[in-house]
C-alpha cells in the first residue's frame, strides 16, 4: 500500500511542470556548467598565471596582460592584421550580398537557380579542401596571375610570398562567400511590401532610387544584423589563415589572424596562461566592436515599429 502511494507521488513529481522543465533543460544546464561557465572561470584564472601545460599554473598577476602591450609586437601585429581583414572583407561582403539579393528579387524563373549558384561558395568555402584549392588559384602560374597577364599586367604578383598581397587571398576568399548573407537579405526583401515599389514606379522612381530610398532603409535592420554577425565571425577566423600560411601566419606575419596567434601560443608554444589572456582580450575586442556598431545603429538603422526611429 505504502509503496504504491510512494510511486504515485513520485509520478506526480516527475510529471510536475517544474520538474519536467528541469528534465528537458538538463542538457543545457549541464553543458552550460561543464563546457561554458566553469571553463570560462578557469580560463580567467589561468590568464593571470604562467602555465606551461606540463607544470601547474603559477600566479603572475597581470604580467600576461602587460606582456602583450609592452613586449609582444606579434600581438599588436595580429590585431592589426585581423582588423584590416575585417574592415576590408565585411563591408564588401555585406554590400555585395545586398546588391545581388536585390538584383535577384526580379521575378523570373531562374532566380532560384542563380541564388543556389551564388550560395554554393559559402557552403563549401570554409572547408580545408576549398581553401587548399583557393590557394592554388593564386600560385605563381595560377589562374589569377595568368588572367592578369592576359589583361596586360607584366610582372606576375607573388600573392603567397608578398606580405602586402597574402592577406588579399583571405579577403577575397571571405567576399566569395557572400551567399549566406545574400539568403538572409533575400528573406528580408520579401518582407518589404510590393506597394512601396509600385508607388515609387508611379512617381517615376528609377531602379537606383528604389534601391536607395526603399530597399536600403527597409532592410537596414537586416544589414545591421549581417554586419554584426560577419564582424564577429571575421574576428574568429582561423582555418583559412592556417591553411594558406601552413600554420605559420606568414609571410612576415601578414596573415597572422588573432585566432591563429592564440592557437600558436597555446598549442605550439604551450603557453596556456598567455593564450588564455589573449582569448580574453579577443572577447573584449569583439564586445567593444559590437558595442560600437550598436551605438552607430541609432543613426542608420530604421525600425518601422518605432515609427521611423
Amino acid at each position: 500500500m505504502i509503496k504504491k502511494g510512494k510511486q504515485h507521488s513520485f509520478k506526480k513529481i516527475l510529471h510536475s511542470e517544474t520538474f519536467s522543465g528541469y528534465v528537458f533543460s538538463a542538457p543545457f544546464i549541464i553543458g552550460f556548467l561543464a563546457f561554458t561557465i566553469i571553463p570560462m572561470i578557469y580560463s580567467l584564472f589561468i590568464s593571470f598565471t604562467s602555465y606551461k601545460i606540463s607544470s601547474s599554473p603559477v600566479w603572475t598577476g597581470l604580467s600576461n596582460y602587460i606582456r602583450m602591450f609592452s613586449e609582444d609586437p606579434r600581438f599588436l601585429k595580429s590585431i592589426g592584421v585581423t582588423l584590416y581583414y575585417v574592415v576590408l572583407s565585411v563591408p564588401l561582403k555585406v554590400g555585395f550580398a545586398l546588391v545581388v539579393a536585390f538584383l535577384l528579387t526580379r521575378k523570373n524563373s531562374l532566380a532560384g537557380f542563380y541564388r543556389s549558384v551564388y550560395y554554393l561558395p559559402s557552403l563549401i568555402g570554409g572547408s580545408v579542401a576549398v581553401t587548399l584549392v583557393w590557394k592554388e588559384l593564386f600560385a605563381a602560374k595560377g589562374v589569377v596571375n595568368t588572367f592578369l597577364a592576359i589583361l596586360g599586367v607584366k610582372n606576375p604578383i607573388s600573392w603567397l610570398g608578398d606580405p602586402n598581397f597574402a592577406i588579399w587571398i583571405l579577403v577575397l576568399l571571405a567576399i566569395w562567400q557572400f551567399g549566406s548573407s545574400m539568403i538572409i537579405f533575400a528573406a528580408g526583401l520579401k518582407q518589404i511590401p510590393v506597394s512601396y515599389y509600385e508607388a515609387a514606379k508611379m512617381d517615376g522612381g528609377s531602379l537606383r532610387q528604389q534601391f536607395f530610398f526603399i530597399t536600403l532603409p527597409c532592410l537596414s535592420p537586416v544589414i545591421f544584423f549581417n554586419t554584426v554577425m560577419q564582424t564577429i565571425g571575421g574576428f574568429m577566423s582561423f582555418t583559412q589563415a592556417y591553411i594558406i600560411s601552413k600554420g605559420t601566419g606568414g609571410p612576415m606575419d601578414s596573415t597572422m589572424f588573432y585566432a591563429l596567434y592564440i592557437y600558436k601560443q597555446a598549442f605550439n608554444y604551450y603557453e596556456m596562461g598567455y593564450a588564455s589572456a589573449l582569448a580574453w582580450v579577443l572577447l573584449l575586442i569583439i564586445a567593444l566592436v559590437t558595442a560600437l556598431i550598436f551605438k552607430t545603429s541609432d543613426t542608420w538603422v530604421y525600425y518601422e515599429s518605432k515609427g521611423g526611429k
Partner: protein
Amino acid sequence: MKRTNRAKHVLSRTVYHASILLLGLLMIYPVIWMVSGSFKTTYEILNESLKLLPEKFTLDNFINGWRGFGRLNFGLFFKNSFVITILATLGVTISSSLVAYAFTRIHFPGRKAMFICMIATLMLPSQVVMIPQYILFRNLGLTNTYVPLILPSWFGSAFFIFMMMQFIMGLPKELDDAAIIDGCSRYSIYSHIILPLISPALITTLIINFYWKWDDFMGPLIYLSRPAKYPVSLAIKLFIDSTSQTDYGPMFAMSSLSLLPVFAIFLFFNKYLIEGISTSGMKT
C-alpha cells in the same frame, strides 16, 4: 514607340541575365576548376591553370590520392569523418530540441535566466573556452579520442536551440493545453506532438550541423595527433605537410571527393537549408 520600348525591355533583360550569369560563372569557377583539376596531371594544374578541360582525362589522381599516406588510406579518413559527424549531429539535434521545448512551453523557475545565459553563449568567442576545455579533456586522458569532438554536442547548441524555439513558438499553444487536459505528460507531448511537428527544423539542424562538423578543422587539429584518427578535413592537410613536393593532382581529387557529401545534401535538401538560414540568420 511601343516597339522601341519592347526592344529596350528585351535588351535590358538580356544585359541583366548575361551579367548575372557571368557573375555566377565567376562564382563557381573555382569549384569547377577544382573538380576538373582532379582529372589533370599535377604538371597541368601548375602550368596550364587557365584551361578547364584536362588535356588527357585521367583517374590516376583518385587512385593515388585514395591510397593516402603510409598505411592509412582515405577510406579510413572518410569513416572517421562520418563517425564524428553523425554522432555529434544526432546529439545536437536531440538535445537542442529538448531544451527548446522546455524554454518555449514549460513554466519553471529560472527559465528566463537560463534563456539569457544561452543567448549570451551565442556571442561568446569559442577561443575563450577552447583552452580550458582542452586542458580538461587532456587531464581526463581523452585526447586522441573522439570524445572531445562529440560529447559537447550532446548538451545542445545555442544556435539550434534558438532556431527550434522560433519554430515551436509558431505552433498553436492549444495543442499543448488540450493534451494536458487529456492527461498527457510533458514527455509524451514532446515526443508525440511537438517532435513530429518540428521535423523541418530538425532536418535543418541535421544538415547545418553536418556541414559544420564535416568541415570542422580546429577541433580535430587540437585534439587528434595520431593520423589514424584523422577525419578528412585534417587528412587533406597532410598533402601540403609533406616535406617533399606537394602532389597537387591527388590533393585536388581528394578535395573534390571530400565535398561530395556536402554537394549531395545540398542537392536534395536545398529547401530546408535555405529556409533555415533565412529564419535564423545562421551562417553555415
